[in-house]
């Protein structure tokens, strides 16, 4: 049984440039009703009709979960990506009708925590916008450390400072400011949970240091969507549906499967949730695994692939789809 998400028909109610790289998009329901309530850390998958292509990209909801008159997302322009963020920046205008998924949360707060310690890097700030709003409304104990390249690229740093004052600490790369991570992690009260969202290097650094300093893995939470990477085109046989398809350079394997009229389940489209996991029937070539779902052993086995983010180079690939 496929358990993709329910869809919401929305209209773009506002488009707000935030800085040189980031633009914020507001959505309301077309029928005027309230949107579904969500929990801090949730994302929606935004459907983009880009000519012949349909792009489906996940973005964290950054508004307050208590105010569901509209959903807001912030999109960082990626000039060398596969084009989703460029589509949002160039083509999405107020009044446009779009479709987004119901919210899905793969980066949930642990409500047992006595304190929530949050570390954000760059556009990784967005899920924390919603989480801090949720916690502040409940009188929750949190502290956010936010690292950005420059003050002008510190998306929402001013908003956060105004809302939460000293609970927000800022670090600017151009001023050589760095999070003193070991000191920070060594001085937290018992019962603190750690949350990190940012570039892969930052997530790995924080997880490694936390592990070395004795933080239990259950107290370290991270959001790590992999964007599908472009690559060489390749051909795939879908055994169950008896189709042979080509995956273009700028297309993910999942998108190519969907374009052929086959609909595997999905939730995150970023290699995290595990929904689109697909069995490999046979292969002659090399897998390029980019997901965070399969184990290293499964990656080596050549028996499974996550088509949302992973690719293949070689002579033949047959999937159980």
């Amino acid at each position, binding site marked *: *049984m496929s*358990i993709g*998400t*329910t869809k919401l028909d929305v209209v773009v109610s506002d488009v707000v440039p935030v800085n040189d790289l980031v633009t914020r998009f507001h959505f309301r329901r077309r029928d005027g009703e309230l949107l*579904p*309530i*969500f*929990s801090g*850390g*949730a994302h929606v998958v935004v459907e983009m009709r880009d000519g012949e292509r349909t792009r489906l990209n996940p973005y964290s909801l950054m508004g307050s*979960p208590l105010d569901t008159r509209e959903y807001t997302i912030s999109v960082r322009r990626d000039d060398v990506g596969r084009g989703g963020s460029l589509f949002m920046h160039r083509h999405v205008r107020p009044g446009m009708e779009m479709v987004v998924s*119901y*919210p*899905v*949360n793969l980066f*949930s*707060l*642990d*409500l*047992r925590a006595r304190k929530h310690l949050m570390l954000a890097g760059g556009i990784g700030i967005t899920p924390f916008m919603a989480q801090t709003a*949720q916690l502040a409304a*409940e009188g929750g104990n949190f502290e956010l450390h936010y690292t950005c390249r420059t003050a002008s690229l510190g998306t929402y740093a001013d908003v956060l400072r105004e809302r939460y004052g000293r609970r927000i600490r800022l670090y600017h790369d151009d001023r050589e400011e760095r999070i003193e991570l070991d000191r920070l992690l060594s001085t937290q009260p018992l019962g603190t949970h750690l949350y990190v969202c940012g570039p892969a290097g930052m997530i790995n650094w924080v997880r490694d240091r936390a592990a070395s300093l004795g933080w239990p*893995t*259950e107290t370290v939470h991270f959001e790590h969507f992999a964007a599908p990477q472009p690559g060489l085109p390749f051909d795939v046989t879908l055994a169950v549906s008896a189709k042979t398809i080509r995956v273009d350079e700028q297309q993910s394997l999942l998108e190519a499967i969907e374009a052929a009229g086959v609909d595997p389940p999905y*939730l995150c489209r970023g290699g995290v*949730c*595990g*929904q689109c996991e697909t069995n490999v029937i046979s292969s002659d070539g090399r897998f390029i695994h980019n997901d965070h779902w399969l184990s290293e052993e499964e990656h080596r086995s050549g028996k499974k692939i996550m088509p949302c983010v992973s690719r293949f180079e070689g002579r033949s690939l047959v999937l159980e789809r």
Partner: protein
Amino acid sequence: MGITFRKETFRDDFTFRNSPEHIRRFPFPFHEDAYMYAVNIEPHVVGSRGSVLENLIDVDEHYVAEMQDRALVLAEDPLRCQSLPHMTLAGWDLLELLMEQQALGYPEHFTLTRDGDRWRWINRPLGIDDTFTFGDTSTLPYGPMEYITRQSQGDFCILDQRDGNLWMDAGMVTTQADWSLDFDIGMNFFEWHAPVPLAHEKGIFVRALKFLTNIQQGKPARRLNWTMTINPRLDTSPENYHKWGPDRATVTPENVGDKVHLRVELQSFWRLPRSNGIVFPIRCYLIKMDELVTQPKWARRLHRVIRDLPDELANYKGLTRYRPALVEWLSKLDDGSATSPGFGPD
């Protein structure tokens, strides 16, 4: 219109009965003449009119009597309702879900009006009319989960989702088939399922957990489970085993039709929006053999299912002692003719 609520008991004199309409809407759980575990999960969508699936949260003629029985259980044993400190937000989520669904399905019995955080809830069958502030526990006579589950049929487990697992961190459990919330509270999915035979070997729980942790908002799912109970007793808990366990030795060929009940659980699974938890309502339906065999197809099929049930399952479900008497009684109603496919009566 509206439901005529029965005056009846689930203890002592056991006056519980199903009306003829309720016999026909009983959620008979066998779609074929045999039973084995399967991950029999399907989307929880509205079903046909007059069925227990007409509304996603079902209220029936036993509502008032069940709520009275729950109050008696809680008065004797308050630990049947527990909520760990981090689960209060999920309790509000559940309160909203149950008020919305009951008011939607049964507007003649329940009314919910909202003005921002100021909510008014009218429950006519139980004579309740309360105004409270959503999110402020001090404005209700109980915590949000206890408040609304004292007014909703079925047991409710609220599961916290973290570390890729589900944790039994809150619940209201008074109509259970021999398990204990007080024992299971704080356990994860694998811990509380440890006693179930055969299913672990089949990898069922690994797959079921993967499915449940991906349940999406707005897309609830459901499954049926079943067992049998002697006398229409809702509270067959381990805590009260001394009260109901001995009943199993009282079954004779003469009283099978009156004493032996098929007990079906309609289990559903819902993602809760604010807390990202899962609520797992377990709604119990009882039907005595005399009522069930008024539908000849069900009589034939139940005979074949119970007769051919693997011994481990019969043991786990507690049927071993009276199975021979039950099979013998049912066999007289089975002429060997074929049964039509599907769950419903002919």
